[in-house]
């Protein structure tokens, strides 16, 4: 059990952002503190929602008063000034002489998916600036976000490798590209992993479920922190496995758990008689079924086969 502060969105109804991150972590015995960057009625996939982002002043006041934590997760931060506020906090919390307690920082650079931005375009450069500050230990972009952060359009495997190599310069220990596809015909999503200490790039082929889900990336980051803690951070003195092996086991466990949750969620959605569709109220029955998945969050099974992408000698 450890402590985490998660900075992401709050929706009253449904499971995205902090609502998708907190419950699974609490069920696996984490003490979770949460700063809500927005207060929305529901996620944007419904086609309509109401609510507001918090002000940078409020974010500053909340960050100034946080209690100590071991892990920091940042997710949905919808505008430039909020990202800059976070960045300022990090520069105080991480740089000597102000650094009080060390913590592991996972950044989910939420910008959009499948070529669509869902934050303000100014966020791209603000996240890039954060990247250059070298505060990040773990990063979990999807393909579109990796493209925006590295300015590399990913259409082929060599494109992917050069994008990852661009990130490597920032010395991020764990890089996970949560989903990647090279052509729309492929029935798989590739989940690609790489570490700063190893030149290998590994990947998993995750069968695509023909549906629409929201909050999947958020759930991924929450589950990942728990698995990385179990397989790596809580075992820092053992050093039996190298970083990449630890990451591979952790991501494999996360993907195994997620696949089960998504299948369950999809079955519930289908039973409603409605077909999942983005931008419509028909997305409603496809909210992640986290409440009935309490037994799955601690699952240690690894049901995916690990593949090696390429030796990308750096």
């Amino acid at each position, binding site marked *: 059990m450890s402590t985490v502060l998660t900075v992401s969105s709050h929706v009253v109804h449904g499971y995205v952002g902090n609502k998708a991150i907190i*419950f699974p972590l609490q069920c696996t015995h984490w003490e979770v503190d949460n700063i809500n960057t927005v207060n*929305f*009625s*529901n996620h944007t996939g419904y086609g309509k929602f109401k*609510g507001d982002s918090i002000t940078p002043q*409020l974010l500053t*006041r909340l960050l100034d*008063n946080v*209690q100590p934590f071991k892990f920091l997760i940042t997710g949905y931060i919808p505008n430039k000034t909020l990202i800059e506020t976070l960045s300022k906090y990090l520069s105080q919390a991480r740089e000597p002489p102000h650094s009080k307690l060390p913590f592991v920082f996972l950044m989910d650079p939420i910008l959009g998916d499948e070529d669509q931005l869902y934050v303000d375009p100014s966020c791209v450069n603000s996240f890039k600036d954060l990247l250059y500050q070298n505060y990040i230990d773990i990063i979990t972009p999807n393909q579109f976000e990796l493209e925006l952060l590295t300015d590399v359009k990913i259409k082929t495997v060599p494109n992917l490798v050069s994008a990852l190599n661009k990130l490597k310069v920032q010395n991020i220990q764990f890089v996970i590209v949560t989903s990647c596809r090279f052509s729309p015909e492929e029935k798989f999503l590739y989940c690609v992993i790489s570490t700063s200490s190893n030149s290998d790039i590994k990947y998993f082929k995750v069968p695509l479920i023909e549906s629409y889900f929201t909050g999947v990336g958020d759930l991924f980051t929450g589950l990942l922190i728990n698995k990385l803690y179990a397989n790596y951070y809580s075992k820092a003195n053992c050093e039996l496995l190298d970083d990449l092996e630890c990451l591979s086991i952790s991501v494999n466990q996360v993907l195994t758990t997620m696949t089960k949750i998504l299948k369950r969620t999809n079955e519930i959605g289908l039973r409603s008689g409605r077909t999942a569709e983005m931008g419509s109220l028909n997305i409603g029955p496809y909210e992640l079924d986290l409440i009935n998945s309490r037994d799955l969050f601690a699952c240690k099974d690894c049901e995916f086969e690990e593949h090696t992408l390429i030796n990308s000698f750096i």
Partner: protein
Amino acid sequence: MNGQILSISSHVVHGYVGNRAITFPLQYLGWNVDALNTTNLSNHPGYGKFGGSAEDPQLIVKVLEGLEEIGNSVDHYNMVLTGYMPNESILGAIKDSIFKRFNSNNHKPILVMDPILGDNGKIYVDERVIPIYKQMFCSGYVDLITPNQFEFEVLSGVSIKDITSLKQAIMAFSHAYEVKNVVLSSINIGDDMYSVGYTRGAHELFLVSIHEIPCKFFGCGDLFTGLVAHNFYKAGGKLTAQVLNDSVHKLTKVLQNTLDLERQVRGTEDIKVVNDIKIVPSAKYLLEEFGDGEVVYIEMEEA
């Protein structure tokens, strides 16, 4: 099917008060908890230092409209719970938004309200919420309220010292308001502490004795309201002795475990205040079903 609850209370970044004390336990008990936050604070004021503020009432109205537009208006829920309301504008906005839907619809969710005003003789919200609570309690829409002794004394105008004055307070409250069920989370009579249940019009009220833990726990009232709401719903919207018994027992288990853990961490037995209930490591107690405990029934002269 999972129950759907809309819980309207405070948010703190750290610790377990308000919605943070209600959400996880109810989720763990199988509820889809839609949490609407009335504050955005770093922690509860018991820490001595905090940052943040009450939510803008306009935001709360907007978010409720947003829910309505996706087919989740308040009457869609199985249960609506209200907790910490920092000021009259927020409570007024919530009253208007909720009652508007209750007026125009057939299905009405169970409405549980914790009229948070203060404790131990001290008010810690804006006093202007009191008349709004009183209006709401006259509406006939409220199924259950869970005040503490002080709050019930303020609402009934009767101070509770013994069984006789307890009965007087309940009668005064029943005459003044139309709330279907009342749970007094805790009252002190002599050296003993009880939780009290009364259903409007019933010929008796009942008391469940509380094993008093000599320590102050922030957020235990919020957790208790969540547990009572859950049990009340499970009992088909009826306030039974079992509803109260199970809630008191679960809460006691969580608080005792909290104190035990706190003693281990601090290395001392002498603990008078616990800032954060250890809800997460006490989760298993939420799932334990407690059998019938001792209940004292007291006849009401006048129903």
